């Protein structure tokens, strides 16, 4: 199988992931989109590992690492989402704006 097929699939997956991260409002869906991006990367790693006939199979090893990290990340991410939901009764990203600057910033005149 030519390497182009998995690369194109991975690119599509990644694009879907980016779209999800940028455009979805639901935090869980954003998390899932991040997973999509990670898996696109995994697909690339495995495909190039095979295509380059790596003796040490670095690509596959790295993939295992990414899977483990992705699992941990999802665990933490879902825990945060849960905590946010308990506190605010919403997980809508557009409404979670407490980190931003207040709309009317109190600016002092003296430096």
């Amino acid at each position, binding site marked *: 199988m030519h390497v182009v097929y998995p690369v194109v699939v991975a690119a599509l997956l990644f694009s879907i992931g980016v779209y999800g991260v940028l455009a979805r409002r639901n935090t869980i869906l954003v998390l899932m989109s991040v997973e999509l991006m990670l898996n696109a990367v995994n697909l690339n790693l495995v495909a190039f590992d095979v295509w380059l006939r790596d003796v040490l199979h670095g690509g596959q090893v790295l993939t295992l690492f990414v899977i483990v990290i992705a699992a941990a990340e999802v665990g933490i991410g879902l825990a945060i989402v849960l905590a946010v939901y308990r506190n605010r009764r919403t997980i809508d990203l557009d409404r*979670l704006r*407490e*980190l*931003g600057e207040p709309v009317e*910033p109190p*600016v*002092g005149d*003296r*430096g």
Partner: protein
Amino acid sequence: MTTAATVVLLPFIGAVAGLLGSRWPRGRSRTEENNARAARRAAWLAIVPLPVALVLLGYLVWRTRVGPGLDWPPGTFYADLLPGFRSGAWGVIETGGVPITVGLQIDGLSVLTAILVCVVALGVQVYSVGYLRGDPRYPSYAAFISLFTSAMLLVVFAADLLVLYVGWELMGLCSYLLIGHWWEDRGNSRAAVKAFLVTRLGDVAFLFGIFTLGFAAGSFRIADVLAADLPEGTLVAATLLLLGGVAGKSAQVPLHTWLPDAMAGPTPISALIHAATMVAAGIFIVARLFPIFPQPTLDVLGVLAAVGMLGAALAALAQDDLKRVLAYSTISQLAYMAAALAAGSPGAAIFHLMSHGAFKALLFLCAGAVIHHVGSNLLSHMGGLRRVLPIPFWTMTIGFAALVGLPPTSGFFSKDGVLLALEHSASPIRLLLYGSALITVGVTGAYATRAWLRGFFGEQAPLEPAHGHAAPPTMLWPLVVLTVPTLLFGFLGAGDLALGSAAVTLVVGLLGVAIVLAAWRAAPAADPARLLGPFRAPCEEAFYLDRVYDRLVTRPTMALALLVVRTDTSVVDGAVRGSGQLTLRLSRLVKLAQQGNAQLYVTGLLAGVLLIVVGAVVL
């Protein structure tokens, strides 16, 4: 040579030890007992070096009694008395240009002046123990006097102009510190600053004069400068610059205004400044460098002296403050010395300097005793003190007699020497000098008699004695001791006495005395200064010179300073504050982007990455 260095260093060591050691070990609480102990220790540290220095100076007199001298004009008394000359150096400081020689020189002029300095300083130190009893800052005060003495001795013995300048500047510093001793009073610290600034104005000119001489002669050593064959123009320029420093330190006419204000300091300090150290330095330096002073410079000095002696004497006649009377008298007497120098007779100038040093120190210390008793400087608060203060009365009488120039006091001989020098000088302004000096002799008699009568005769003032007890013996002994040189020093110059000129001087002086006496007998309660008539107010204000300086110098300077302050706040500070505010305004723009929408941030991040990638690929 080592002896001279020891003489200079002894008071210096005393000063350092007094400053560092009188409260040692540190950290003791400032209780009364500890203060008294520190004062006792400081007094010993200040007094002990001076008798030792005097003994060493006696040895130097013995060493210089014979020897090949320098070329002084004939009849210069110190060169006749002690013709020896020695000099030595402890090293040469390479400056890249003209080197500086760290050396001292000993001759009759320096040894005799040093003896005067040490005697007066010793009297002042002993006197101060009583005068400043209980003053918590006495240790530093005594140490500064020691430093002052040491600086003057350095000026006296220096063999190099820049070494001399070190002592010269140290004296300026010490006068500032001592005049402002009671700095809690704003007026006193102002007077100290005024003394410092006015003398500094002269010192700048003095320093440039030294540079001019040093670079022209290729050496800063006094002997080399005197020996160098310099062109007339250079000499005139250099000596005129030197004259600026002389006028500042010796309180000559344009720069004399600091001296009356310097009365804000403790009275012993006035005695020290007026008799031995500060003001003597100016006359001394002219005498030291006299051979290179060309006629034009001497003429300038003569005109200043002629104006100064009469003006200051008239101002002294109208003052109500006893110390200011003495201060103007000092300016007037210093002008005599300057006149003698201008007339070409450094011997007469130094002779008068030394006799004046003795009797003016005596007068100031007596005035200190009187002020100590009365608690006021003003003559109108005094009166009838001759029964209450017998010792100050008699010693001050002798001092005033010397000031007027009555025989057999030293003032008679020295003043006569000055007038004789003026009469017979070859100076083109001889008549001006002689006439002014003769009138001043009369005015001197008048103001001395006035102060004497107002202080010691008439009705006793109803004031309570401020200190409640008589002056301690440490204040009376220096008075008695100082009467000895006041009475006897003059006989050193008795051989040069010219009877005719002396008689004229004496008659004029007695005339001044008689006029004031007559005025006083007519109305004992009134101030004899009324004799001045309409000139009384200008004389009391010293001819408004302070006001003129205030208009011409002080106020423009203050206006300029205010302008600088305003520029500083509006332009410099404005730039700093403005940049801060500009940053704040810009940050408001940037803040618009930070809304808290995480997805917007990520979009921005991605856009940035894309931009970089595209940029990297394309470029």
